[in-house]
C-alpha cells in the first residue's frame, strides 16, 4: 500500500518495511520456511552428521568417528549388491517407462476412438499404492502360476522364469512391476508434450516430403527432448528411492537378490538399530538424488529466466 507520506517521520528503513504488506507476506510464509529449513535441510545435515558418529544400538551415541561407517559401507557386501541392483533396476525401469510411455502417447495422439478410456486405464496404476502393486505382482509372478501359467497355456511351457525370486535376474522382474505402476505417468507427460506441438509443424514437414518416421525422427522426438529429460529425472529419482514395491515383492529376497538402498537403509536402521550405518546409506541416497535434482532445477530456472 502507498506509505510514502510516512517517510517524513524518518523511521529506520526496516521498521517501515515491517509495516508493509510485503512484510506481512513474509511473516505468513515464515513458519513454512522454518519447517522446510529444519525438516528438510536441517535433517539432511543431521543425517550426514549421524553417519559420522558411532550410534549402533538403541541407545543414542553421538561420538564422532569420522568416515568409519562410510569406509565400512564401501566394503559391505549387501551395499555392493544394492548398487549393482540400483544400476540394473534404473536401466530396466527408466527404459520401460520412457519407451512405453512414449509409444503409448504417440499412439493415443493418432485420433483414437476411445482415447479417454485407454488413457484412464494406462494411468490407473498410478492411483494405486506401491504396496498394492507389489502384493498383486507377487501373486502374478509366482513361478508355479500367474504369468507362467499364461505362457504355458499358449504352448510356451519352456518359458518359466522365477521372476522376483530369481537369484540373478530378480531385480529386472521388480522393475516390470514398478514400470506397470509408473509408465502411465510418463505417458501423460508425453501426451501433454505432443499436444503442445503445433500441427502446422507436422503439416509443413509432410509437405516437404517427410514420412511418419521422418516427422518423428526430425521434429517430434527433438521437440520432446525436455519431456524426456523430465521423465528421466522423475524415473531416475524413483529408481533411487524404490522401497514399497520391493518390500511387497518379498525384498530383500534370497541372497538380497532384489534388495535396494532404501530397503537396506530401513532394515539397517530400524531392525538392526545400526543408526550410523543406516544414516550413511541414507546419505548415499541423498547424494545420488542431488546429482539428479540439481541439473534439473538449474534447467527449470534457466527456462523461467528466459
Amino acid at each position: 500500500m502507498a506509505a510514502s507520506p510516512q517517510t517524513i517521520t524518518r523511521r529506520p528503513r526496516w521498521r517501515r518495511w515491517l509495516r508493509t504488506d510485503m512484510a506481512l507476506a513474509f511473516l505468513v510464509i515464515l513458519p513454512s520456511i522454518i519447517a522446510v529449513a529444519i525438516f528438510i535441510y536441517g535433517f539432511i545435515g543431521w543425517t550426514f552428521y549421524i553417519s559420522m558418529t558411532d550410534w549402533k544400538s538403541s541407545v543414542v551415541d553421538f561420538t564422532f568417528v569420522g568416515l568409519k561407517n562410510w569406509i565400512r559401507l564401501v566394503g559391505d557386501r549387501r551395499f555392493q549388491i544394492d548398487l549393482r541392483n540400483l544400476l540394473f533396476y534404473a536401466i530396466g525401469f527408466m527404459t520401460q517407462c520412457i519407451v512405453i510411455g512414449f509409444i503409448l502417447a504417440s499412439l493415443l495422439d493418432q485420433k483414437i476412438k476411445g482415447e479417454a478410456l485407454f488413457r484412464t486405464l494406462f494411468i490407473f496404476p498410478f492411483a494405486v499404492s506401491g504396496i498394492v502393486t507389489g502384493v498383486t505382482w507377487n501373486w502374478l509372478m509366482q513361478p508355479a502360476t500367474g504369468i507362467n501359467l499364461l505362457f504355458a497355456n499358449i504352448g510356451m511351457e519352456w518359458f518359466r522364469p522365477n521372476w522376483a525370486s530369481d537369484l540373478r535376474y530378480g531385480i529386472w522382474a521388480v522393475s516390470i512391476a514398478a514400470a506397470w505402476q509408473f509408465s502411465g505417468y510418463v505417458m501423460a507427460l508425453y501426451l501433454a508434450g505432443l499436444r503442445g506441438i503445433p500441427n502446422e509443424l507436422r503439416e509443413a514437414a509432410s509437405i516437404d516430403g517427410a514420412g511418419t518416421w521422418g516427422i518423428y525422427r526430425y521434429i517430434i522426438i527433438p521437440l520432446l527432448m525436455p519431456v524426456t529429460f523430465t521423465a528421466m529425472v522423475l524415473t531416475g529419482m524413483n529408481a533411487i528411492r524404490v522401497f514399497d514395491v520391493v518390500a511387497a515383492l518379498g525384498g530383500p529376497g534370497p541372497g538380497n537378490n532384489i534388495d535396494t538402498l532404501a530397503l537396506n537403509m530401513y532394515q539397517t536402521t530400524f531392525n538392526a538399530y545400526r543408526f550410523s550405518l543406516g544414516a550413511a546409506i541414507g546419505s548415499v541416497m541423498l547424494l545420488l538424488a542431488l546429482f539428479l535434482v540439481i541439473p534439473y532445477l538449474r534447467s527449470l530456472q534457466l527456462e523461467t529466466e528466459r
Partner: protein
Amino acid sequence: MNLQRIWTRGAIYLILLAFAAFYAMPIYVLIITGLKPFTDVNVTRMWELPKGLYFESFTQAWTLVAPNFKNSVMITVPAALISSMIGSINGYIFAKWRFKGADTLFILFLVGMFLPYQGILIPLVLTLQFFHLYGTLPGLILTHCIFGIPITALLFRSYYAGIPNELLDAGKIDGCGFFGLYRWILLPISMPAFAVVLLWQFTTIWNDYLIGLVVLSNPVMAPVNVAVKNVAGSYSVDWNVQMAAALIAAAPTILVYLSLGKLFMRGLLAGSLKG
C-alpha cells in the same frame, strides 16, 4: 494407399489393445482372486473367473485391516486438508508477493520434493520423539503436512500465477490488504486448485508406506498400506484374502481417480513442474 491406411490403423488399435490387456491384467487378477473362496484359489486355475460372487475373502480381509483403514482415514483427511490450506497461502505468496529472494526460496522448497525420505528419517524420528509425537497420529499428520509444503506450494503457485495482477490491483484500490486480497479475491476462485491439490495430497498420503511404517511403528496404529504388507507377508494368509485386503486398501484412491480423473491428470502434469 487406402488399404495401407487401414492396416496402420488396425495395427495401432491392436498395439493399444495389447497394452490395455497388460495394464488390466493385475487388476483383473486382483478382483477375481478376491472374489474367490479359499477352496477355489488354485495355482492351475488362477485366471479363471470365480464360479459365483463370494465375499467371504473381503469380510475376512476386512477384520484384518479395518482398524488400519480407519487410521488411514484419520491421517489422510486432516493431513490433506491442512496441507492444502498451507499450500494455498504459500502459493499466493510465491505467486503474488515476490519479496527479495522469494524465487530462490521457491527453488529450495522444490528440492525437498525430490529427495529420498531415507535421507531424513532418523532425525525425523528423534525430533518427533523429543516432542512426544513419535508413534502418534498427530505426529504422522504433522510430518505429512510438512513434507507436503513443497508440492502444494508448487501447485497453488502455478494456479495463482495465471490470475491477472490487474484483478489484485483493483482489490488494492478498494482497500484490500494482504489478507483481504486473498480472502475476497483469490480464495473464492481457488476451488479448482483446491480440488487438484486435495486430490493429489489425498492420494499421496493414502498410498504412503514408508513414513507411516517409520512414524507409527506400532502395527495396531499403522495405516492401511502397512497392514496390507503385513497381511501379505505372513505365510498363513491365503491369496484370496491378500488380494481382497489389497483391493480394500486401494479402493478409496481408485474411486477418487475414476470419479475425478481430469483433476488427477492436472496434478500429475503440474507435479512434474511442467504444466
